[in-house]
């Protein structure tokens, strides 16, 4: 595959225009409005507000290849740029684990940390006969074709993996029998589930908050170790006997080629954002739960996560 980076033109263009002022840049590998864009804009704004960055952080949107374009841009063109941060999430790890970035691997960048997590959730319509995760799993075990899931990611994506992980844990052998449709975001998945076109939705808790309040859906399980603060009446999958933990963390990576000092400087800055009140507010407003892990710990976590997802994707046949 020929890798031609044209999108970087404008960022170079902008930076050039800014002249000698070396403002930090945050690349959101997607169009404005999504999770990565949120990460860049919030972290960028807070970094400046709390005085960690003297100039406002320049946010560049570089959509392409599900983040692959930005990834190859950083690896190939900006490998020693210490003023560059890039938004990342579980989706980044999932795609790296499934080799969806055209042969690029996770060790070609450094993961700085995550400072918030959107817990995974399985929900059904309020009038659904399934009262607990066990009801749903039992129905799927008895007749795998009878339960269709709707989620916001493509087939094989993170939302698809969640129910498959649970069913795998419950002992279902032929996981390809489970129907899954990828919709344009969690809200659509909820609508389809409430309308009865799919039997359950798989997504993140932030995607169902509004529908929970309106009483239109029932959350069967959150995929966390402990119950989520503010959603204390939703049981975890773990306490219902299915040991599956999955959340969509929000974080950053930086180029591989920067020095250890520069890497740790970013880790410290990210920690400062995590500790700020502004970030706490941003998280509360967007349904994120606290989850802070920065620096070398996080790199270890990522390595483990990618190995897990890779294994799981092989097991269920998403990749060969």
């Amino acid at each position, binding site marked *: 595959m020929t890798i031609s980076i044209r999108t970087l*033109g404008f960022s170079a*263009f*902008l930076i*050039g*225009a*800014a002249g000698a002022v070396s403002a930090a840049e945050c690349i959101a590998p997607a169009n404005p409005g999504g999770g990565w864009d949120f990460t860049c804009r919030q972290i960028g704004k807070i970094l400046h507000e709390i005085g960690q960055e003297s100039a406002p952080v320049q946010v560049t949107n570089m959509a392409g290849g599900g983040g692959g374009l930005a990834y190859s841009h950083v690896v190939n063109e900006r490998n020693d740029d210490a003023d560059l941060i890039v938004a990342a999430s579980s989706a980044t790890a999932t795609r790296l684990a499934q080799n969806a970035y055209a042969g690029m691997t996770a060790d070609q960048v450094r993961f700085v940390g995550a400072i918030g997590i959107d817990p995974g959730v399985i929900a059904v319509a309020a009038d659904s006969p399934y009262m607990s995760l066990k009801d749903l799993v039992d129905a799927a075990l008895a007749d795998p074709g009878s339960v269709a899931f709707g989620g916001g990611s493509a*087939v*094989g994506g993170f939302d698809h993996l969640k129910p498959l992980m649970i069913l795998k844990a419950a002992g279902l052998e032929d996981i*390809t029998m489970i129907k899954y449709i990828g919709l344009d975001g969690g809200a659509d998945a909820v609508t389809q589930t409430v309308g009865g076109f799919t039997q359950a939705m798989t997504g993140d808790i932030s995607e169902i908050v509004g529908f929970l309040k309106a009483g239109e859906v029932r959350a069967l399980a959150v995929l966390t170790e402990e119950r989520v603060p503010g959603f204390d009446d939703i049981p975890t999958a773990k306490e219902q006997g299915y040991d599956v933990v999955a959340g969509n963390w929000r974080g950053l990576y930086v180029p591989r080629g920067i020095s250890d000092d520069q890497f740790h400087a970013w880790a410290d800055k990210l920690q400062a954002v995590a500790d700020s009140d502004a970030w706490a507010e941003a998280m509360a407003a967007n349904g994120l739960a606290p989850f802070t892990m920065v620096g070398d710990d996080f790199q270890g976590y990522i390595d483990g996560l990618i190995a897990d997802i890779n294994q799981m994707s092989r097991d269920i*046949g*998403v990749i*060969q």
Partner: protein
Amino acid sequence: MISDRIFGLVTVIVALAYGVSATSIQTSFLADPVGPHLFPYLIAGVMVLSGLIVMLRPDPDPEWPPMRSVGALAVAVVVLVGYAYALRPMGFLIPTALAAGILSYQISPRVVPAAVTGVSLSVGLFLLFKYALGLGLFAVPRDWLG
């Protein structure tokens, strides 16, 4: 008549080529019942059919421009393509003044108003984009700035 027959033929050829290139789409093996091929095939099918209808039942010919206008249009296309390539390496001002001036001359062939239009559009839009809208534009090639 003849225009539509040619258009219909081109449509059919393009549609067939599209259908053929759709055969090379890879399928992941967790495929859905329909897969990624069907919809492109449907499109190609409808297009072939419509192309044939246009070939067989053509509308009256449109009024095509005389050769001289075609030449002018070709020049305009070349200017725009050149402008696309020049915009980044050459900065905003010079390519814009040239391209706008030439287009203006092509619409109304008077040299002085066209030149004035080119230069003033270039400078005016630069000021508008750079300062009012805050876009990061280069005025001139970066080398010139030292």
